[in-house]
């Protein structure tokens, strides 16, 4: 495995709503590496700049929520009309749907916080001069970790730590830390060395360079990491049900096991809507929180 890593989420030509491809962008073959690097270098700095800069078109603002609202409304109307037998009732009665939704949001939020608290400082530490030699090792480890299926990881942790939301959260954090770490590393290493050298040259301390130059330049990247973590975690949280961790996966698995299509569809539609909503909010935040100084395309 080559330690080469593209900033998985950041190089991206057109589409603004990018996938959670932190795990995706990881490994590159030797041959394609340079080509890919060039592609990444070519697109990364201006990646999320639409032709109009930060001006987000109103379609961008309203399209996704409108679509989600319509889909949810349609599902709700259909679900109200669907005939539910006692088994289906048992799966959705007594506020179980709200409970599942709340659990899902909690699982996602908690694991995302942990992922960011672990991955971003670790990424910063690994790019400091005294630890820089450890970076290839960390990268190789991260690449290897991508090969572990989320489901297997989660269930192994459940066997180890016991059933419940705690092991689900640990599994989600372990699973999402690697892609976010890989993105952070790739981004911090992608900062133009002449900028940091210039900062050193005017007499800034290493801490000053980090806090006044490198971190501000890395903000878009950190925001991309937040989004990657959120989107990954919304998805992995559906698997928490297999370890008794709750979440919307409960509805889906109940629907599949009992063969009650209304329950299955309700669970699936809610999960999809939540995932798309989270992604939409995160990409919006990514655009709005970007420092203005970085907007000018060079």
């Amino acid at each position, binding site marked *: 495995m080559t330690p080469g890593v593209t900033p998985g989420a950041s190089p*991206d030509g*057109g589409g603004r709503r990018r996938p959670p491809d932190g795990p995706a962008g990881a*490994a590159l073959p030797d*041959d*394609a*590496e340079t080509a890919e690097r060039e592609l990444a270098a070519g697109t990364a700095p201006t990646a999320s700049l639409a032709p109009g800069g930060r001006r987000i078109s109103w379609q961008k603002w309203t399209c996704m929520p409108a679509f989600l609202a319509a889909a949810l409304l349609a599902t709700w109307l259909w679900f109200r009309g669907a005939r539910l037998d006692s088994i289906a009732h048992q799966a959705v009665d007594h506020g179980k749907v709200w409970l599942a939704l709340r659990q899902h949001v909690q699982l996602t939020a908690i694991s995302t916080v942990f992922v960011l608290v672990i991955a971003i400082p670790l990424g910063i530490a690994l790019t400091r001069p005294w630890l820089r030699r450890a970076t290839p090792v960390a990268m190789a480890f991260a690449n290897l970790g991508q*090969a572990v*299926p989320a489901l*297997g990881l989660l269930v192994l942790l459940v066997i180890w730590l016991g059933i419940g939301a705690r092991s689900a959260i640990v599994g989600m954090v372990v699973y999402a830390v690697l892609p976010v770490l890989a993105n952070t590393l790739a981004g911090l290493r992608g900062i133009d060395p002449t900028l940091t050298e210039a900062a050193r040259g005017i007499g800034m301390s290493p801490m000053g360079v980090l806090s006044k130059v490198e971190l501000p330049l890395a903000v878009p990247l950190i925001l991309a990491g937040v989004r990657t973590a959120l989107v990954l975690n919304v998805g992995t949280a559906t698997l928490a049900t297999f370890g008794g961790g709750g979440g919307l996966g409960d509805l889906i698995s109940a629907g599949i096991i009992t063969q009650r299509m209304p329950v299955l569809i309700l*669970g699936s539609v809610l999960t999809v809507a939540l995932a798309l909503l989270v992604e939409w909010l995160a990409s919006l935040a990514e655009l709005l929180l970007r420092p203005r100084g970085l907007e000018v395309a060079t």
Partner: protein
Amino acid sequence: MSFWEYVGSRHAQLLTDTFQHASAVFQCMVIATVLGVVLAVATYRSEWAGALATMTTATILTIPSLAMIGLLIPVVGLGVAPTVVALTLYGLLPVVRNAIVGLRGVDPALVDAAKGIGMSRTARLFRVELPLAWPPILTGIRVATQMLMGIAAIAAFASGPGLGNEIFRGIASLGSANALNQVLSGTLGIVVLALLFDAAYVLIGRLTIPRGIRA
């Protein structure tokens, strides 16, 4: 029973599951590659069509795989069908995106030169543009395959084929002596498969990337 004893006693079952897992991922990846490249070729010339293709496939990728399978079951039923559809859909995005980026990255002067020596539109596409765009496409395929390995495991919940069945057997017997062995063998099997596929792609890259554009 230790892990190796377990693997020894169940090797027939494990091999079948491993083979089915690999074959499901491989076949879906072939479909996804063909579809993805066709989609990219059809859209890369137009700014908005390319953006639309990337955005649509990106949206699909955002959907959690369990929910996607849940939505497919009422339409195509349980078993192999939802697995194949879900795997193919998820495999599309990295291929489409990388193919569009790769095709757009081809130096226009080269295409002009090809036109100048009298190559037809199709010949230009197959003999100039696609070979030049192949390295990023192959990267996309690699990335997609690794992702599909994990998604195929989840698809076993809808009675799909593969090593996910081993993991779900372990979940069903949680607390019993063999639960850990089952989950571990399923998980490690997938890791090994993912690494083998990755190695195969490196080899394919060496064999298929034209000598002239190698780094």
